[in-house]
């Protein structure tokens, strides 16, 4: 409760949370009020905003608001899924290596650092380019999760290593807990706030990675995402035609989501780490 009170005192947290909840509500409640059929050509190509189409239409004549809500849903879905995969893999590797120490830790650390240095966008490009058929939204999210976990592993490992010599961990060991039991029940609870912050950043990274892939034309074949809207607008001359409504709202949405996640993260950091608060 005190934690919540502290959080609510931080203007960044309030701003970030309200922005994020707003986009979340738009994604969840949008389908109740809107026709989200993105193949429904309701008008002509690149119609300017009007009373009928509040944000105009895209190059196929589809209502932009439907496109945006559908895109936002996909992007948030990718963020959640990729963020969850990356955080769980990273946390497990980090906790296990940090607690175990020794050779296992060395091997895991070398492996983590290795993939940290190799640009993840490059691995993403190579993987997605080789999967030509069946590049679905879920598959892309999983691939992103599997390539971006490294820095959460690195961050969690450092924290876990600092906990391994605490007395309660030694007590648990004497009481016959296995490695997995100690890691999950006696080390992870201390790091939950930290892991949550990692999750938020991984989510933002997942959303950005998907958008980058879509910009390269390696996006999902089965759904509209915010990155794909931007890519379509770019390839179909929305910029030169002056059809700002075909790309500007999507930019605002993606930036809002990522920005809100970033400032939620910083505000949490300020609360959990009082040294930064002044």
């Amino acid at each position, binding site marked *: 409760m005190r934690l919540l009170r502290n959080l609510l005192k931080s203007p960044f947290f309030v701003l970030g949370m309200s922005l994020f909840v707003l986009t979340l509500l738009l994604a969840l409640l949008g389908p109740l009020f809107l026709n989200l059929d993105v193949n429904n050509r309701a008008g002509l190509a690149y119609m300017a905003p009007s009373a009928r189409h509040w944000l105009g239409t895209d190059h196929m004549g589809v209502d932009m608001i439907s496109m945006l809500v559908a895109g936002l849903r996909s992007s948030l879905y990718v963020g959640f899924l990729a963020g969850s995969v990356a955080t769980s893999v990273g946390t497990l590797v980090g906790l296990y290596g940090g607690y175990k120490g020794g050779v296992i830790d060395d091997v895991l650390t070398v492996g983590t650092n290795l993939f*940290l240095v190799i640009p993840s966008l*490059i691995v993403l490009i190579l993987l997605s380019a080789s999967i030509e058929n069946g590049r679905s939204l879920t598959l892309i999210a999983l691939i992103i999760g599997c390539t971006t976990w490294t820095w959460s592993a690195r961050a969690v490992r450092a924290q876990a290593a600092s906990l391994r010599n605490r007395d309660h961990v030694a007590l648990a060991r004497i009481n016959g807990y296995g490695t997995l039991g100690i890691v999950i029940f006696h080390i992870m609870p201390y790091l939950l706030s930290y892991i949550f912050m990692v999750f938020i950043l991984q989510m933002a990274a997942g959303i*950005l990675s998907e958008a980058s892939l879509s*910009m390269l034309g390696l996006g999902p074949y089965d759904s509209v995402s915010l990155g794909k809207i931007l890519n379509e607008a770019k390839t179909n001359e929305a910029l030169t035609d002056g059809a700002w409504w075909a790309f500007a709202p999507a930019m605002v949405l993606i930036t809002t989501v990522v*920005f809100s996640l970033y*400032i939620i993260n910083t505000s949490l950091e300020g609360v959990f780490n009082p*040294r930064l608060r002044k």
Partner: protein
Amino acid sequence: MLQNHPTLAHIVGRAGWYLVTFLVAITINFFLPRLGDANPVDTIMAKVSEGLDAASARAKEEAYLKEFNLVEVDGAGNVRRDARGKPVRTSLGRQFINYLGMCLRGDLGSSVLQHPKRVSEIIKAALPWTLALQLPTIVFGWLIGNGLGALAAYKRGVFDKLMYPLALLASAIPAFCFGMLLVYVFGIRLEWFPTVGGYDDGLTPELSLAFFRSASYYYVLPFSSVFLIVVGGQAIGMRSMCIYELGTDYVKYAKLLGIKESKILLYMFRNAMLPQLTGLALALGTMVGGALIAEMIFSYPGLGMAVLTAIQGNDYPLISGCTLLVTVSVLCANFSVDVLVGFLDPRIRAARQAGK
């Protein structure tokens, strides 16, 4: 000998580590594109086989198979055949060994899309543009971002309250969004700057004043799109680093002694810089990726554009050639930063000397 030279030992150790990383990267680069069932020869054949009879089509296909190292070749350069006269396919393992050998010779095979052209030729033409765009943006962005971050941490007050959210916003905008926005506002609406390509159509890349002027005119928008984002990200990191340093005893002591503010700032900057330098090594991959995508937005004639056309045309040799080059450059840059940190950080030096 190495025991007596801790810095040298550090460099050798890091070099070994990066060599291993390089081997992993090259393995990934070879095997990932081959996960799918696309085959460069089929792609080319689909283009050239029209109007050919069966025999000459087969001859052509075999020539391509040979060119892309997909079939076994005997000493005289003839394709080896099995009992039924079909060419013997090279196993994946053999292909990998051939690939490693080719890479060491600097040969990245031929492009599928622009067929007789070599990948290394295409890359050679694109590389200077990418270097000219990325090196200054990352170096200057890093320096200015760190300066702003340190200043914000030290001054606090209005400057910090204004700069910090702006920096957060700048780092949250995806590079391609910002690029598209610049194209639209400054290129298409205001018509201040050109938005497509790296120089005027009539010119050829050469060392002349006219070309240089044209190129720098085209340079403005791509540069600003990456620069601002790098500045934002670095300023945030430096700010929290400096706030941490401000709370340390040496800063308080220096203040009590009445040392000049600018001097304290200098001490603090030096100490906060080192983690930032290590951070740069880790963030480099992301920055380079973002800059590659910015290149595509501006159709800048660099590697990003080469990757984009390669992806659109399923040009695997070109994709993996470009990705390999980007990976190797990032690894080299990281290695340099690592070595530099070893020289600069007195704590690393001391730890190594104490451990001896």
